[in-house]
């Protein structure tokens, strides 16, 4: 009987100790923080449009790719959703190149291309229409599907050249969007850039 008392006492003490580390509501002051720059709506990451991610690692694609950008493209800071981000400026304005990756097929190629089309005021396409316009690019072991679509946003002519890299467990999007004339002029550089993408 006495042993039971000791075991019970030991259990009670240990159980009480278990409740010791519990986080609570806190209040503190920190030096003034400036807000991070707001991403423009067209600046959206691909599977979760318009809400770019906070700047800490989040689950995106897990494969590693490297690439070489032309020297006249300037790298921009990335949120955690973007794997890479560049601004391309010219007399026509500024274009944005976003590199994003997501697990799975993110709803399929057609849904993503139609979403891009929606962003530049183009009607959705059928699978047959999409396939007739898709350009295939083999770059080493990597296979890209490329679309080049022109439309308008807020009345201004806008073009998107997108390269989609489907991997077994994830999908990578290289989306180049900006003023029609600028993106068209930079298309050759973009295609060279896509071919520089290598896995490591």
């Amino acid at each position: 009987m006495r042993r039971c008392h000791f075991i019970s006492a030991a259990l009670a003490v240990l159980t009480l100790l278990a409740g010791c580390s519990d986080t609570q509501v806190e209040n503190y002051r920190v030096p003034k923080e400036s807000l991070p720059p707001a991403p423009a709506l067209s600046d959206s990451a691909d599977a979760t449009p318009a809400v770019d991610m906070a700047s800490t690692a989040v689950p995106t694609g897990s494969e590693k790719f490297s690439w070489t950008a032309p020297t006249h493209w300037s790298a921009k800071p990335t949120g955690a959703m973007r794997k890479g981000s560049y601004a391309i400026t010219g007399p026509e304005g500024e274009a944005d190149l976003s590199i994003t990756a997501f697990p799975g097929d993110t709803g399929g190629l057609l849904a993503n291309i139609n979403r891009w089309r929606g962003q530049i005021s183009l009607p959705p396409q059928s699978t047959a229409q999409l396939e007739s316009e898709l350009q295939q690019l083999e770059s080493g072991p990597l296979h890209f599907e490329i679309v080049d679509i022109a439309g308008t946003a807020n009345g201004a002519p806008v073009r998107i050249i997108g390269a989609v890299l489907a991997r077994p467990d994830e999908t990578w999007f290289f989306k180049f969007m900006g003023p029609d004339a600028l993106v068209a002029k930079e298309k050759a550089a973009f295609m060279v850039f896509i071919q520089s993408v290598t896995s490591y």
Partner: protein
Amino acid sequence: MREPWKSFRDFFVSLKLTVVLMALSIVLVFWATLAQVQLGIWGVQEKFFRAFFVLQRIPGTDIPFPVFPGGYFIGGLLLINLVVSHISRFKLSWRKSGIFLTHLGIIVLLLGELFTGLWQEEYQMRLDEGETKNYSESYLFNELAIIDASDPQFDDVVVVPEKFLARGQTVQHPKLPFRIVPRMYYSNAALQLQDDGQTTVTTPVTRDIGTRLKTISMPRTYKPNERNLPTAYVELVSADGTLGTWLVSPQLVQPQTFEYAGRQWRIALRFERKYKPYALTLINFSHDRYAGTDIPKNFSCRIQLTTLDGSDDREVLIYMNNPLRYAGLTFYQAGFDNNDRTTILQIVRNPSWTLPYIACALMALGLLVQFGFSLIAFIGKRRAAAAIPA
């Protein structure tokens, strides 16, 4: 008084207890190893080892029920078993000093694991080149931050741990002129913007960007390289009535702002932060490869470390196996991203990190002494036997 002490001692010095505890730990380790497939390494540590009991929910309810002794329970009893055995059996003699040192090493090892579980902190800091941060972020936990940003010099922050949102627990804080009422919580969710003008989002959210976002619930992830991104709908209710309902998620890069009672407020669900009295700026990140190949040779980052009071302002280089040790924290080069323009530092506080080394040294010394004595005695006996004339 003597009788209870004797009973206490008999129970805890018993070798049977040691054997039972050892058997329980084998079962615990085996079960936890299987469970790691579903829970991941962190989940298993918390559920099986850094707990007094392994808890399971009663089917159909949220009530936890203990089903097996946890790591703290078994380890704690082993520790008591070992210490009490020492106190009651130990006699100071040279011949026993090896055994004593070995057991002391085991005690230090058990205590080391306990202290690590209690005090260790692991955070992350992700820095783009040129970016400065004076806080690290948890890669497991999130917090709801309500910030009074009215003062031009500082921000007054009230942080509510994620568990309050998960439980739907209303929070009233003296610094806030309103109550925080969690209305909905998703432990992992994706957000989709519905701005094509065709889809209408049905949502209880009434304020800001959340009115245009659709929340898609996702299964929780336990993979070590992924994290759960929660989303919550939070209503703020003042004495005058509701201020509205916000959608908050770490996926929203900016805190949402609003005005109330003549003050500027910000609301955000963000990765749990630990502020420091110093700031780090990433000067540059280098990822060197062997010439002509993609094989990594070295990862390193140059950091400017600046204390807020100006007492320290220096450049440091962090690379693989050469962490920065500062203010009780160790900053490891843990990862990189963004085509080698972003570094990810792992920031660890473990005040008891030396204990496993001390424990191993004690055990090695103890075994050396113990076997040394045996060897000397054995050699002595052989010599004595050889000296006897045939």
